């Protein structure tokens, strides 16, 4: 046993897989302790807010002001306001005005604006330009002037008595506020989803739920598979025939389809996470049964079992003490695989909309479902689905890596 453990922990693949898995477990456990936001709380009005640090503008106005003189502040300000479309439009106007095209570099904000400031004249007639376009250029010019000015803005509030706007404060262009002094800041590293929920917090909770589902499903499936496999392999005869009959039946009937049917039949109200997990477990025992049975069959005629039989031990005793220890390694591997496949199956079901109820807990599959229904991938809102996929992949990848590592330990021929 000790030697086996030594080899197991010597196996590179196993260590890597285990580390990833444990890392994820730690995150799942520790994160909610630090970040106490409820995962399904809708915090955004609107869909798919991009990732970033969200600073309350109202509060930042009132926060202590610091003056910083940064060289490129103005350039940054302008650059962010001037979209690619605007730059191209400016270039078009300048070209139409007669400026040679090779002198215009739309990426060089400063020179572009200089050219514009020097040449733009709202009164100039450019042939072929529609009225709407003319107005567009006028608006563009006005907004550029606004950006280029170095004055700050005034804050006005309504006078309670007169109802008129009075200036109550001003904000200069060089005023900076310290984010940690702003009372309301929310960091959303992964933005929000379509409902306006914090994706990261949701993701962590979803991972935890999915892992639990996988665990339950895996346990159920492995227990069923182990029992059936042991009985079929050891007792043989009619019991074996019956069990194999059902096993073969369930092999061919696609379990996914079966799950869809069962899940749909249960109905929305009864579909809790736990129920789904158990159902998944009840439909995925086939592979484990077959594998355990094969192992038991090869063990059946070994000497120590015959010896045990001769000593008069009961069948249960033999199975528990003589057969089980030899297939233990195999069962552990099967268990790992069942957990990971349980997670994947739940994800697949949820994408179809047949997963656990959508209002209680998020699961990885559910998050994918939401992203898909609201077309996140087409809209380019990668944060709604990409982290989910990566998480799923990491979870299953780490488990399968552990499994391959174990496989190499128990099966020397597969070693590199």
């Amino acid at each position: 046993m000790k030697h086996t453990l030594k080899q197991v922990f010597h196996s590179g693949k196993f260590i890597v897989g285990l580390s990833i898995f444990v890392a994820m477990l730690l995150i799942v456990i520790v994160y909610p302790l630090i970040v106490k936001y409820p995962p399904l709380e809708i915090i955004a009005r609107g869909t798919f807010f991009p990732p970033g640090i969200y600073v309350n503008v109202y509060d930042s106005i009132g926060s202590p002001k610091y003056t910083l003189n940064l060289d490129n502040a103005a350039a940054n300000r302008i650059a962010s306001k001037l979209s690619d479309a605007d730059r191209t439009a400016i270039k078009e106007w300048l070209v139409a005005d007669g400026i040679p095209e090779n002198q215009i570099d739309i990426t060089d904000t400063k020179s572009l604006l200089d050219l514009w400031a020097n040449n733009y004249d709202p009164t100039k007639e450019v042939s072929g330009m529609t009225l709407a376009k003319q107005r567009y250029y006028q608006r563009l010019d006005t907004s550029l002037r606004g950006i280029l000015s170095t004055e700050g803005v005034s804050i006005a509030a309504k006078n309670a008595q007169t109802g008129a706007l009075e200036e109550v404060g001003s904000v200069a262009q060089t005023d900076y506020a310290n984010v940690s002094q702003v009372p309301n800041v929310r960091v959303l590293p992964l933005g929000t989803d379509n409902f306006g929920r914090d994706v990261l917090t949701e993701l962590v909770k979803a991972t935890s739920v999915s892992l639990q589902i996988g665990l339950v499903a895996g346990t159920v499936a492995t227990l069923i598979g182990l029992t059936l496999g042991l009985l079929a392999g050891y007792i043989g005869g009619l019991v074996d025939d019956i069990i194999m009959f059902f096993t073969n039946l369930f092999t061919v009937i696609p379990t996914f389809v079966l799950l869809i049917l069962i899940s749909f039949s249960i109905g929305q109200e009864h579909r809790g996470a736990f129920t789904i997990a158990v159902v998944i477990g009840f439909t995925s025992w086939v592979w484990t049964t077959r594998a355990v049975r094969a192992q038991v069959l090869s063990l059946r005629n070994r000497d120590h079992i015959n010896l045990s039989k001769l000593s008069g031990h009961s069948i249960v005793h033999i199975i528990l003490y003589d057969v089980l220890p030899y297939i233990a390694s195999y069962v552990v591997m099967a268990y790992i695989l069942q957990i990971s496949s349980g997670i994947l199956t739940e994800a697949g079901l949820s994408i179809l909309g047949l997963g656990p109820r959508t209002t209680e807990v998020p699961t990885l599959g559910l998050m994918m479902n939401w992203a898909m229904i609201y077309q996140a991938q087409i809209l380019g809102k990668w944060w709604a689905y990409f982290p989910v996929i990566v998480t799923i992949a990491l979870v299953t990848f780490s488990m399968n890596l552990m499994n391959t590592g174990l496989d190499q330990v128990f099966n020397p021929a597969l070693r590199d």
Partner: protein
Amino acid sequence: MEGYRKYFLSKLLWFSVTLVFAFMLNFILPRLMPGDPVRAMVSRMAQGMTNATGVQAIYQQYTELFGTNKPMLEQFFIYVKNVFHGDFGFSFSAYPRTVASVIKASIWWTICLQFPAIIVGWLIGNTLGALAAYLRKGFDKVLMPVSIFVSNFPAFGMAVILLVIFGVGLKWFPTSGGYGFDLIPSFTWSFMWSVIVHYQLPFWSIVLIAIGGQAIGMRSMSIYELNADYVKYSRFMGIKDRKIVGYVFRNAMLPQITGLALSIGTMVGGALVAEIIFSYPGLGYTMLNAVMGQDYPLISAATLIITLMVLIATFLIEILYGFIDPRIKAAQAD
């Protein structure tokens, strides 16, 4: 051919039994729920329908067609009879289209997408796995982690990634549909081309996942075979390595074919989800809409059809295996 008869017959028997069982499951499971399933379904979906007469018509038709007011056993036979006539009743969500027409429209898309994809993936995957086992060293060390990683991607994961990279990012391929929205199905060249273009992303996502899974299996199988006694013996008798490799892969292939038969159910499941990601007009997408629309007859029919497809595919593969494995031929010849 004589020798195959026993094999063929036993497989056929098995196929029939499984078929009956599938029918039974498909019939029983939804009806296990308490209450009149039809009423529940109709009432649920009637919330979306404003046409009162329409609701009544559906309910009537369904009750007549499936005889839900008759005892269970009779219902079962009516059900089977209906299925064989291709009569599944009206689709709740796509009323007044019948379920049969909805399925007929989508089934070909699925078959043409999935089965070629699975086979191609199987072929490429096995070849890569075999090469990895034979060449080892560099090739193997690269292939193994990549395969493990890829095979762990859920089918939809791969689908989404391909979609995002090639569809949205690089804009090489369209992101949804089976063909351009503006086109009407016809045998024109532009339509065909549109179909082919739309086919690429779903096809390759299924293929890639299949490759990952198969490569690993084939590699393990090949390594196992490469260590077999007959390999040693053949070497001792002076046979060239290349020829021995031929033996090994022929022998390693056989369980892989069986493996394909066993796993085709899962692969189809995964491929269905991939279809959904791409809004590909196959059975997967139909299923999604059916679920969202609580369309009970459609779901029931779709699951049955999918099961049937998988059963037939498994059956064909097993027959094929009988032709390929010489031991079967030999065992029958006595």
